[in-house]
């Protein structure tokens, strides 16, 4: 379904700040896989997601989604296949536009923007039903500006926007990191629900080890631009936080004390 072959990306090439952010990633994702991505700061987690989303072109290698080679497609063309939720709740929605307008933009993801009316009556009815799933009462204030919503509400809305038109791939980039613990738990639960309901192929970056263990059917760990650990199936179900820390120190060769700081 998703195929990364020898993906390399170096930032600030030829300067003193040169950093190889992705050093030859090979990665394959099956349809319906829900993989959680962990790793310390600067490990390359967000860089990998941005490479897949096409925020900038990669230096080497190839990326394909469902057999379509998207390596040369710019971000807005790849959007056809990909739904995204960002870490910053402000980033995924248009603050000056209404809730229903944001959803109307999202339901047209990957379609050309014509001179037809931007939102139809049927869509409004559908949005009303879909917003109920969020359980935030947003269905009763569909014309409100998104800028009036809280971070958690905006993140839940972004999640709905990313999935309202079923994406081939859902990318969640630490989408609960900026929320308070209770709201984060709600948004995460919602993510699980939506992913399960539509059987979405999903990648989720998180800094929370237990979230990484308890969600999804596969877990990968990154370090220095490489995937250093890949666990799925039964083995993942039995995984504990201690296991992960130990595996990390084995592979990365760092003492456990620093791992704790890096990963939690």
């Amino acid at each position, binding site marked *: 379904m998703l195929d990364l072959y020898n993906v390399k990306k170096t930032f600030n090439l030829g300067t003193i700040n040169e950093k190889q952010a992705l050093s030859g990633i090979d990665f394959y994702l099956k349809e319906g896989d829900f993989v959680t991505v962990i790793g310390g700061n600067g490990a390359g987690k967000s860089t990998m997601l941005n490479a897949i*989303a096409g925020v900038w072109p990669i230096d080497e290698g190839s990326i394909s989604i469902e057999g379509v080679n998207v390596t040369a497609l710019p*971000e*807005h*063309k790849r*959007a*056809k296949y*990909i739904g*995204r939720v*960002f870490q910053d709740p*402000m*980033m*995924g*929605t*248009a*603050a*000056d*536009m209404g809730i229903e*307008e944001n959803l*109307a*933009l*999202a339901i*047209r*993801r*990957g*379609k050309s*923007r*014509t*001179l*037809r*009316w*931007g*939102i139809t009556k049927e869509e409004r009815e559908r949005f009303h039903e879909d917003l109920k799933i969020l359980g935030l009462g947003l269905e009763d204030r569909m014309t409100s500006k998104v800028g009036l919503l809280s971070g958690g509400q905006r993140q839940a809305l972004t999640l709905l*926007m990313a999935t309202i038109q079923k994406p081939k791939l859902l990318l969640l980039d630490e989408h609960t990191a900026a929320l308070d613990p209770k709201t984060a738990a709600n948004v995460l639960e919602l993510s699980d629900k939506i992913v399960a309901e539509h059987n979405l192929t999903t990648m989720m970056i998180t800094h929370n080890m237990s979230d990484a263990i308890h969600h999804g059917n596969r877990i990968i760990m990154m370090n220095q631009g490489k995937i250093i650990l890949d666990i799925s199936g039964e083995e993942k179900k039995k995984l504990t936080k201690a296991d992960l820390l130990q595996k990390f120190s084995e592979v990365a060769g760092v003492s456990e004390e620093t791992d704790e700081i890096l990963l939690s």
Partner: protein
Amino acid sequence: MNVLAYFASLDPMNFMGAIPGNVAQGLIWGIMALGVFITFRLLDFPDLTVDGSLATGGAVTVVLILAGIPSPLAIAVAVLAGVLAGLVTGLLHTALGIPGILAGILTQISLWSINLIILDGANKAVNVDKYSLIVSLRNVTESIIMVLIFAGIIISILYWYFGTEQGSAIRATGCNPNMSKAQGINIDNMKVLALCISNGLVALSGGLMAQYQGFADIKMGQGAIVIGLAAVIIGDVLGEAIFRKGMNFSIRLTFVVFGGIIYYLVIGLVMWLRMPTNMLKFLTAVIVAIFLAVPYLREKRKNSFATKSKREGQKNA
């Protein structure tokens, strides 16, 4: 000078008499302000092309009318010229990576030369007795009705357009470019498109203005962007004061045009008070600064450390 004598010398009838003319001019500038509204408010792009494209619109219109082309057709060509100017700014910005404000300035400065070539000089007159014009200060009432019709049609079209999928995509691009890309919107195309529409409207306004005043002048666009901003901001502040939360998109557009009229009435007032005309641009800047500051200061009064410390002081006393 005796203050009383000064006020006694001001004839209110003179001011009243100038109102229709000011309204007509304000309406024409209001159409330009609609163009500025698109870039400044919807696209969040400070487009300085307008000083050039306004004069281009006037120049093309006058030259074509003098060449015997019917004025409606001349205006249509002027709009196309404006669209081209917007296209250039858009491509300088999106294809060549030049910052928006600079891209606009570059187009504006190059249009100065182009306008001189079009006009074959610094200005050109078109006589309303010899040619049939859409508007003319010789017939103010008719002109006002004509421009009102233009403004009405344009506002309706803009209201419709920015409700379509494409128009919504332009608004989203101005509001949050990252999100727009993630939703599959080609933001470069949207920027170029909005700049084209905006400058088309500005050129239309220039074409009407040239006919109204009976000539096109190389300098007619000087400071146009500031007048446009003034109209947009005056319209916003007034609309919000009157309609509060109830201000929808069509009311917003209408108030942009009102903003143009009010701006010109204020200018009329200033002229009536016999203030030196050399100060006009200065006063325009002051008006814009005041109207830009009002929303900020009002917010600050409600929500600032200074007010906070006063209240705390009262509590402690």
